[in-house]
């Protein structure tokens, strides 16, 4: 839909973008004593804004638009919340709130008032990250999205090496360098786009793009740059050590949310910028890489000895599912992509994986805190020490395996249905094989956690509120399984004008 004018209540979108940024600056300028309080106040306010946006979008059935400074695109920049954005905003806010509750235990400000590094850095970057994510969900300008991606990278990288150990520093540097390589490819693509069409506005480009070499190269560079940031196989070199090395609260956010932003951008590029109908072989290539990601990295997850590394590899595998949507949507008989089962399944997979993976990483963090290590083979006694956490892990695992009644089940069922409908048998086979592999690696952990504790193993007590935060995320991942099995009208809001 063209962003012609600001819609009523559009100011909320600005708030969604600016609240966390203001919170971050406040922490920076006021010092640590207030960091946690500022962060939590911002979390509450931001959650309220996200919910308000979602409700408003749902009520009006229209996308919300805000023209920054009143300047209309292509000259100005528009923020827009369509159904997809609204869902993503709420998802982000809820997950960050849960992580916020969780992190109180590990990143509390010291009582004596002296500023310490970890809480200061964590809370300020945590808010910076939120700003970046909301920007990625809302911006409709390719260059603003570039800035959003950079915001994201700059907030995420230092979180990886918060511990300051050699391994994490090294992981963070790899992450930074590869992410920058991705960014620069993306930026190159936007430059070519501007050279060809004289605008960065997605809605304007939607009507302009031609299937010529300049556009193809631009899109190719941008999409592959984003793939590097989403860690799709075989560009996943940075993810496992980075996500496994970060503190649990940070890993959860990185794996659940940060890798999703580049994927959502790819979706927008593919369905809103690329000339339609998009190239079938290119869609098959993306899905092929997704399938390889699923199979290859699931096997890798299965072979990890450390819990957090296993979860990190599982993230790469699960991101693979998202890339299956391209041929599924293109081959479907639905009138518009957003009315197809494949699209809905893809988005649902994104959301349910976000909740499940956040819960899993947080649970892994608590298990490691309770037992003092995260070696999968020696997790015995975990179920006795932190039963709620292990239950949360198992529930989240249910979603990853794609078993009912979890959200991941509905998502995979929709993708499977779409694969059968479009006769993409290899995709159907991959989805099923991925489910089997996921079940195997999840069961390996749960089975080990249920075993008896070895003699003389001590455990550390964990605050109940933190366990409950994890459980809440896992329960949401499961509750998503009670969505009906059909394309959701909500996700198509704001896309009426697009063929």
């Amino acid at each position: 839909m063209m962003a012609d004018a600001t819609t009523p209540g559009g100011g909320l979108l600005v708030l969604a973008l600016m609240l966390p940024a203001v919170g971050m600056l406040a922490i920076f300028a006021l010092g640590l004593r207030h960091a946690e309080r500022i962060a939590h106040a911002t979390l509450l306010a931001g959650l309220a804004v996200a919910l308000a946006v979602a409700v408003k979008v749902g009520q009006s059935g229209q996308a919300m638009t805000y023209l920054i400074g009143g300047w209309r695109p292509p000259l100005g920049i528009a923020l827009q919340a369509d159904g997809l954005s609204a869902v993503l905003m709420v998802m982000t806010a809820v997950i960050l709130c849960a992580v916020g509750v969780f992190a109180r235990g590990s990143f509390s400000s010291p009582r004596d008032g002296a500023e310490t590094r970890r809480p200061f850095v964590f809370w300020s970057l945590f808010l910076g990250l939120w700003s970046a994510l909301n920007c990625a969900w809302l911006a409709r300008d390719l260059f603003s999205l570039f800035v959003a991606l950079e915001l994201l990278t700059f907030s995420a990288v230092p979180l990886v090496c918060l511990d300051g150990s050699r391994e994490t520093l090294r992981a963070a540097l790899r992450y930074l360098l590869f992410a920058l390589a991705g960014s620069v490819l993306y930026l190159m693509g936007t430059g070519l786009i501007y050279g060809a069409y004289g605008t960065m506005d997605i809605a304007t480009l939607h009507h302009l793009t031609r299937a010529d070499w300049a556009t193809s190269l631009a899109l190719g560079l941008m999409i592959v740059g984003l793939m590097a940031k989403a860690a799709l196989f075989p560009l996943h070199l940075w993810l496992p050590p980075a996500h496994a090395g970060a503190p649990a609260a940070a890993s959860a956010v990185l794996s659940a949310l940060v890798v999703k932003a580049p994927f959502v951008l790819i979706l927008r590029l593919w369905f809103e910028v690329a000339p339609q109908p998009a190239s079938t072989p290119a869609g098959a290539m993306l899905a092929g890489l997704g399938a390889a990601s699923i199979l290859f990295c699931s096997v890798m997850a299965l072979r990890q000895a450390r819990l957090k590394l296993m979860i990190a590899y599982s993230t790469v595998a699960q991101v693979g599912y998202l890339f299956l949507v391209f041929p599924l949507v293109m081959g479907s008989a639905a009138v518009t992509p957003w009315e197809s089962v494949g699209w809905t399944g893809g988005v649902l997979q994104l959301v349910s994986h976000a909740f499940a993976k956040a819960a899993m990483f947080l649970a892994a963090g608590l298990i490691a805190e309770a037992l003092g290590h995260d070696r999968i083979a020696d997790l015995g006694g975990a179920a006795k020490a932190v039963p709620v956490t292990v239950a949360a892990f198992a529930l989240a695992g249910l979603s990853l395996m794609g078993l009912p009644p979890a959200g991941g089940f509905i998502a995979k069922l929709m993708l499977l249905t779409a694969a059968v409908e479009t006769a993409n048998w290899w995709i159907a086979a991959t989805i099923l094989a991925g489910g089997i592999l996921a079940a195997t690696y999840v069961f390996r952990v749960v089975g080990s956690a249920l075993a008896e504790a070895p003699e003389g193993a001590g455990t550390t007590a964990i605050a109940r509120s933190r366990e409950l935060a994890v459980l809440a995320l896992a329960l949401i991942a499961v509750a998503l399984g009670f969505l009906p099995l059909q394309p959701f009208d909500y996700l198509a809001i704001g896309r009426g004008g697009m063929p």
Partner: protein
Amino acid sequence: MTPATLYGLCAAALVAIGLFGLILHPTPLRKVISFNLIGSGTFLFFGIAARRGAAAGFLGDPVPQAMVITGIVVAFAATALAVALLLRMLEAGAPTVDGPPEQPDDLSP
């Protein structure tokens, strides 16, 4: 051939050269420098677009020029962060050359 086209080809070459360094250099400092080379080439693409879009009494389209300014600053911040990281690794006693011992950085399988 206009100067813009000539510099455009130069930009393409800069990207290729930078990419070569980014892929092959084993030390992070040289990777960062290579990244900046690619960035410079990329910014020039915007410059070409700006120059070609000269109109309305402007000698270049100011919009891509403004974007380049933003881009240069972001690239600087990235460089500073990467350098700070690699220096910290040095302090922590980790070799900043990536790869050995767990992952030798050559191509032989």
